[in-house]
Structure formats: C-alpha cells, structure tokens
C-alpha cells in the first residue's frame, strides 16, 4: 500500500511538471495554430535569468527571471510570429524552429557550452517522510506551483474579460475578431501567459537539475508536445490529461520494467505514446473547433 502511494506521489510530481510544460504550448496552439518549438528556449532564458540573479535572494531572482521570460515571450511573438501570423501551420512551425536555434546559439555565445550551476536552497533537496512515503522537496514544489498556476489560469479564463476573449478566440479566431476582440491583444496576452508557464517550469527544472545550459529547453519542449499531442492539440483539458498520462506512464514503466531495461524507460513510454496516437490520431480529447 505504502508502495502504491509512493508511486502515485512520484507520478503526481512528474505530471505536475509536465502539465506546466504542456499547458502553455496548448494555449498558444489553440489561439494561433502555432506549435511553438521555441517554448523550450523561453525555459532556457528563465534558467539563465535565475543564474544571473541568483546572487540576490532567491525569491527576488525568481521574480526577475519570470519578468524576463514574459518579456522574452512578448518579444518573440512581436518579432518572429506576428509577421507570419495566419500562415500555414508548417510555416509557423519552421519559424519557431528558427527562433529556437537562434536563441540556443545566442546562449552558447553568451554563456558558453558548459552548464552554469545555480545554487538553490537545500530546502528543496530535502525529503519529507510521511507514513513511510518519501516526498522530495522538488515534488512538493512542482505540485504546489502546478496547482497554483493551473488554478490561477482557470479562474483567469473564467472570470476576467481577457480570459473570456481568449476562450472565444481559441474557438473561432476569425469570428472573435468580427465581434470586436482585438487579435494583437489576445495573442500577446497568450504569449505572456506562456512566458509565465515557461518561467515557472524553468524554476522547477533548475531546482531539480541545479544548472542552466543552452540546450536545456529541448527535452521539456518535447515532453510538452507529446503531452499536448496525446491529449489533442489545442485543447486545454487535453493537455492536462496528456501530462497526467505521460507522468503516470513514466512512473509505471519505471516500476514495472525489469531492472536491466529500466534505463531505456523513455523508449517504452514514447512507444506507448505512438500506440495511443495510432489508435487515436486526433488525441484523446480532440480540439473542438473547425478552422476557416
């Protein structure tokens, strides 16, 4: 029993992080059909932000890094994606590849290829034991931040005028503009939100890994895609379900695979994802709109 609870706790930790990765990608896709591969570089920027400001106290460093990521997300939209807005999804995707490589190489030039280690409080590396179940500090951090962010996002979408506009635009962008919703405002706002997601994820990843490096966005962004694809691109709840399944699947394979196969756990996880996508190419919760 304790063991099962232990696995559930581990899965919750992973799923929380994955949800924080997947949601912003799903939101941006829902609004403008852009699969933003450069989302990973927003995370990287956040991590370097933490590195730069780490000398100050951590809460302030986290806040400043978050501000920088949001500004970077807004700049990215303005400079790279606005000019190609309305182009085919392929064009948008390739644009995001270009942005991604550009930012990665800029980071290599500025910070070099060696990871920059970031001191984080030992608080997060401690483990709490409750009734035989070990809970790592970083797990508590991930779950806590995910609950706050997702809850905040849901309230924002339901209660505020801007959230209302975003929901309408996600269903039918053209129609939303025709009833007076401003495209630029909605898209900028969505990117700002994706920046918040990237900044929070960067914080967790830095606490987990202890360093910032130029290519650190790649794995998270792939996880984000896989989770959103599984759930159904562009659907909010789909991204959450995809993240939960991916987290649970990873832990399940970790537990069930014989020891000698455990190191290739990821291969099994993504193999399972392939099977899901073969059976349900639209994802588990297909996005709910036709585009014009």
């Amino acid at each position, binding site marked *: 029993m304790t063991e099962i609870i232990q696995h559930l706790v581990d899965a919750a930790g992973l799923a929380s992080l994955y949800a924080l990765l997947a949601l912003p990608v799903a939101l941006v896709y829902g609004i403008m059909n852009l699969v933003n591969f450069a989302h990973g570089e927003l995370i990287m920027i956040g991590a370097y932000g933490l590195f730069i400001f780490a000398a100050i106290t951590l809460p302030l460093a986290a806040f400043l890094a978050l501000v920088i990521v949001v500004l970077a997300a807004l700049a990215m939209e303005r400079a790279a994606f606005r000019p190609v807005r309305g182009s085919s999804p392929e064009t948008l995707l390739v644009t995001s590849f270009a942005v991604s490589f550009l930012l990665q190489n800029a980071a290599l030039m500025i910070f070099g290829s060696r990871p920059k280690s970031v001191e984080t409080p030992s608080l997060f590396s401690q483990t709490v034991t409750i009734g035989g179940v070990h809970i790592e500090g970083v797990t508590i951090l991930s779950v806590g931040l995910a609950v706050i962010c997702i809850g905040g996002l849901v309230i924002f979408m339901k209660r505020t005028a801007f959230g*209302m506009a975003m929901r*309408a635009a996600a269903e039918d962008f053209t*129609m939303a503009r025709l009833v007076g919703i401003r495209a630029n405002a909605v898209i900028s706002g969505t990117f700002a939100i994706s920046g918040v997601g990237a900044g929070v994820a960067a914080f967790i990843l830095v606490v987990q890994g202890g360093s910032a490096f130029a290519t650190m966005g790649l794995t998270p962004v792939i996880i984000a895609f896989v989770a959103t694809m599984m759930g159904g691109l562009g659907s909010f709840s789909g991204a959450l379900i995809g993240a939960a399944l991916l987290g649970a699947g990873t832990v399940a394979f970790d537990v069930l695979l014989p020891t000698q196969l455990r190191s290739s756990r990821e291969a099994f996880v993504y193999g399972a994802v392939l099977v899901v996508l073969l059976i349900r190419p639209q994802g588990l919760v297909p996005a709910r709109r036709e585009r014009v």
Partner: protein
Amino acid sequence: MGVERDPGSGPELVAAGVCVHFEGVKAVDGVDLTLRRGEVLGLVGPNGAGKTTLVNSLTGFETPTAGSVHLGDRDVTGMPAARLARLGVARTFQSGRLFDHLTVLENVEAAALTGHRTRRRAVVHATSVLEMLELSHIASRRARELSHGESRNVELGRLIATGPTFMLLDEPAAGLNEAESDQLTALIASLPERLDCGVLIIEHDMRVIMRLCHRIQVLDHGKTIALGTPEAIRADPVVSEAYLGSVERDAAS
C-alpha cells in the same frame, strides 16, 4: 409596414458603383446602395444575383474590383472586416457561427466586451440583450446544444451586443419554422428604432421582406433592377413578372 419614414440622421453606409468580378464573372456589376440609420432595407434577387457578394464587399469580406464604399465621410473600401466591425458595420452569416463550447451568455458577453471594458459590465449588457431577445431562459446552455432557431437568435444577439450602427443580416430566417420566423421578423422590425441602427436584410421569404422593409432593392445578374417601397416593388412589372413569381416558388419549395 412599409410606410415611408423619416430616414434616420447620422452617417449612411453608401456603396457607389461597386463591382466584384471573379475571373470574368461579374458577380456584382456596378451597384449603388445606400443604407440609412433607422431603416430596414431588403436586398432580394434570385440565387446568384450577387446579394451575398455585395454584402461581402460592404462588410470587408471582399474587396470591390471597382467602385467605393463609404461610411459617412470615411472611405472604407477594402477595409478588413474586423476593423469595419469595430467601426459599427457588422453582419451575420448564412451559416451561423457561434462559439460552440461557450454558453449563450458567454457568446453574447464576448461580443459585449468591446464596448464594456470590464467583465462585469459586459455581463450586464449581455444579460439585457438576452432579455430583449427573450433568450434569458437559455442563457446558461452551451451554444452547441441549441436548436437551429435558437442559435440564429443567439447569433443575432451577439451581433447586437457589439453595438453596431449598421447590421447586415444574411438570410436570418433560413431554416426557421413559421412561428420562429414571425418572432424573428418582429424583432428585426424593432431594431432600427431601439438601437438607432440601419438594417440590411437578405431574405428569400417575400412575406418577411414585404412586412419588414421600408425599402427594397432588387438585384439580378449583379445589377440593380428595381429600388423602392414594398408597394412600388410589388407593383413594378419588371420585378413581378420576371422575378417575384419565381422567388415565391423558390421559397415555397
């Protein structure tokens, strides 16, 4: 109905010599049209006469090949639809497009946001629009669960919530039963006065057109063949001989 009224004051929506050509086909071929505030203008004509294309070019969905569109003194020829909508020229579509997963109230709210910056004020405005359309009882239903008639009404509500000066309605009564159609007709008839706006309506049902419109403009093959009061149009030999009979058969089928 159909009595000449004092045309509303304020800017008019004016098309002058509008042509829309598609690869040699003259869908609209030099049409003049004036829509005034306070009136309902009927735009009728057989299928393919160019009615929807003309409305498209008045609302920014089609750039005229030649001619101009003015909103008051302002030249709005070829202006994008979203901008025109913000200037108060708004339309419905033959296929009503609601935000399917939002509730009826939220659909109208989304449109009310423009003029009412805060969510709370948008809700108040949207609620009053739904009351006016007698749709309050379905306010919390999701748009995709609505009947065809209900969704047409909600679409109209969403349009009204944007506070348009000119509303262009493309076959609003299509697919409605007689009772629904009558109710919608009564509602549309009340709009110019209630909202101080001008309404242009494309409709095949001549019963609706005759009851509703202050003026009727008849198109055929992309040209205006008649323009006048319902009485004048009914009496016009060109229209009644060549056209109205066939439309009434269309509508009956």
